[in-house]
């Protein structure tokens, strides 16, 4: 029996059915306390148009979508996927991890989490309560996402704001706040927009990544810069879809409403703070696990020597696209939060300077170091907010970028690896500065050109 449930086919079919049920309920009508089951049953039975052809229950529509998707996946595997080769492993003594150090670090993290949870009870000033969500927590989330792209995979992305914008606009779209009208035949709560937006943003990351990630270094930076601008221009000019420069209509607040359970996020920023904090912690766990997994090691290998990585069977394009999509996912979530909290979005928020601002947080904290980036974002954003809230004589809000620029230059001179760099980054930068790596590169070019 156990074998039956752990067989790949059963697992896969089970996952498909679970996904189908989740998506159907998620996009269905909200629940009703008087009739707790109605939210579930009507999600499946509500009659909708089958791809504009004929009316059919929603459950059938999503099952059809799922089958099409599964078909694409199967086709992809048959045609494009190479057989996975299994390395044989014989029994030898195992690698021992340093567990004592880990528990000390764990208690620091727990303490930081407790402080973060208590914070809204200590800080009661409305400006700071709101800033904690919209300027600090969300920026931290964006920074740790960009860190995956820039720090782990070593890809300079200057258009990160695009994913943030897509996340926000998808939220506005599914909640019916855009002129184009809502999908799924009725409006969805912004809370359910989180997974939808993340899926859309990841697709955008893959679509941008596949053609552009063959480029390296400066060229990639320019293309991503262009992508950021394109998305902003779309938002500004597609009046019929995005509402143009006036932005979206009113985006409802977050509501969690399935069956009998209901929670409404209102005007008070504190519940948003906890929601964002929860997702920051979730993303932190996911990203640090990725960093120490073979995915993270593959990113480092590609960053350090792409040709050698390729010769060992690491597919650089796949892993780069993956970094793009994963980084984008956290930006997409940040976009949803922004849309849900501020209940109105317009293209003026999604500018190049926003992308640069996030990049500053990553570089200041230490590229490739998750904790460094978190600390960097907290510091820079708190100081920025302090300057805006209680400006010194002669300070204007737009001056902020002068100081951020100066900070970046100072960091590059005195502490190029960032405030709290990862050990590996520090080593890499030391190697580049000592010129050893440079020498090696010169030899390599000679090798490549040897005829």
């Amino acid at each position, binding site marked *: 029996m156990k074998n039956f449930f752990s067989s790949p086919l059963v697992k896969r079919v089970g996952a498909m059915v679970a996904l189908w049920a989740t998506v159907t309920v998620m996009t269905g009508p909200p629940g009703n306390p008087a009739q707790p089951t109605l939210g579930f049953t009507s999600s499946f039975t509500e009659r909708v148009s089958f791809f504009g052809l004929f009316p059919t229950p929603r459950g059938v529509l999503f099952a059809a979508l799922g089958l099409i998707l599964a078909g694409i996946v199967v086709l992809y595997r048959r045609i494009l996927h190479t057989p996975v080769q299994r390395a044989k492993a014989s029994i030898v003594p195992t690698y021992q991890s340093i567990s004592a150090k880990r528990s000390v670090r764990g208690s620091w993290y727990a303490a930081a989490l407790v402080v973060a949870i208590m914070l809204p009870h200590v800080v009661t000033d409305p400006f700071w309560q709101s800033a904690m969500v919209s300027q600090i927590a969300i920026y931290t989330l964006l920074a740790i996402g960009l860190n995956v792209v820039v720090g782990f995979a070593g890809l300079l992305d200057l258009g990160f704001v695009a994913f943030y914008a897509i996340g926000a606009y998808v939220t506005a779209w599914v909640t019916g706040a855009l002129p184009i009208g809502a999908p799924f035949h009725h409006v969805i709560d912004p809370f359910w927009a989180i997974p939808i937006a993340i899926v859309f943003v990841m697709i955008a990351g893959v679509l941008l990544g596949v053609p552009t990630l063959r480029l390296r270094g400066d060229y990639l930076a320019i293309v991503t810069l262009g992508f950021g601008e394109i998305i902003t221009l779309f938002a500004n000019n597609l009046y019929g879809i995005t509402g143009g420069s006036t932005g979206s209509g009113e985006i409802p607040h977050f509501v969690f409403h399935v069956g009998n359970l209901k929670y409404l996020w209102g005007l008070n920023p504190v519940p948003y703070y906890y929601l964002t904090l929860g997702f920051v912690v979730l993303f932190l766990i996911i990203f640090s696990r990725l960093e120490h997994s073979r995915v993270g090691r593959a990113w480092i290998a590609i960053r350090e*020597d792409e040709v050698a990585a390729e010769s060992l069977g690491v597919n650089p394009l796949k892993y780069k696209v993956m970094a793009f999509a994963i980084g984008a996912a956290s930006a997409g979530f940040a976009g949803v939060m922004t849309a849900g909290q501020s209940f109105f979005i317009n293209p003026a928020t999604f500018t190049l300077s926003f992308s640069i601002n996030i990049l500053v947080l990553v570089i200041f904290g230490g590229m490739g170091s998750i904790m460094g980036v978190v600390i960097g974002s907290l510091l820079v954003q708190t100081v920025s907010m302090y300057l805006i809230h209680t400006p010194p004589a002669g300070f204007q809000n737009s001056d902020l970028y002068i100081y951020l620029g100066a900070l970046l230059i100072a960091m590059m001179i005195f502490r190029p690896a960032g405030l709290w760099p990862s050990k590996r980054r520090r080593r890499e930068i030391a190697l580049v500065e000592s010129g050893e790596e440079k020498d090696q590169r010169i030899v390599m070019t000679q090798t490549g050109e040897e005829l």
Partner: protein
Amino acid sequence: MSTPLYDVTNVTLRFGGVTSLNNVSMHHNRGEILAVIGPNGAGKTSLFNSLTGVYAPQEGTIVFDRDGSSPLSVIGKKPHRVSAAGVARTFQASRMFPAMTAFENVKIGAESHRGFGVIGAMVKGPSTRRHERETDERTWELLRFVGLEQQANVISNSLNYGARRRLEIARGLATNPTVLLLDEPAAGTNPSEKVELTELIRRVRDEMGVSILLIEHDMKLVMSLAERLYVLNFGSVIAEGTPEEIRANPDVIEAYLGSSDAGNEGAH
């Protein structure tokens, strides 16, 4: 065992107007230590890069057959696909991941063919942990095999030349290859390291059953190690045979041994 491991037929590789490989044909038998020699610029590294998918020759065919029943046409395949098919290589100027430890360098090779694993890495379930343990064991096994167990946690950039060469071999072996391509493994090593390296290469073949294709300038090493040789000059194969035959071949003596490198050989 009938078909050769590598079957190269009439391969021509050009860069603009320069012909790097000119109508090269060769084959690599299973379990053989094969060497390719030739003066600088003869096209040896170009041949390696063509065999591993880095370069795509304009003419000819390269067929790699892992087990005698799954021929793979290498030309046009990406290097990571060729690696997955069972080809491992080292580089002329050793290309370690400089800021990684020796252990991590080998581990990358040991886990690269295990597919994607993003979800596995996020959830960190029992199967991910088991894979992790298996690759760790495999990595230790290989570090022990090349004698770098003590230096497992040393940053690869601070290893000496001989150790880097051995580490590169371990990293290549970690991908579980059928054939290992060594691009001048003895370059920059001292005489005692050379002896160790010769020993190691022979053990790779004898104990791991991995065939070896070798490019080397050090004639003493090549002649003692290789069972068969190809000699390249100006992109063409000018001779093929056992070390004794090659030593006696007048074309080879003129093109290679007789000219600049004859004195070099005497120096060792």
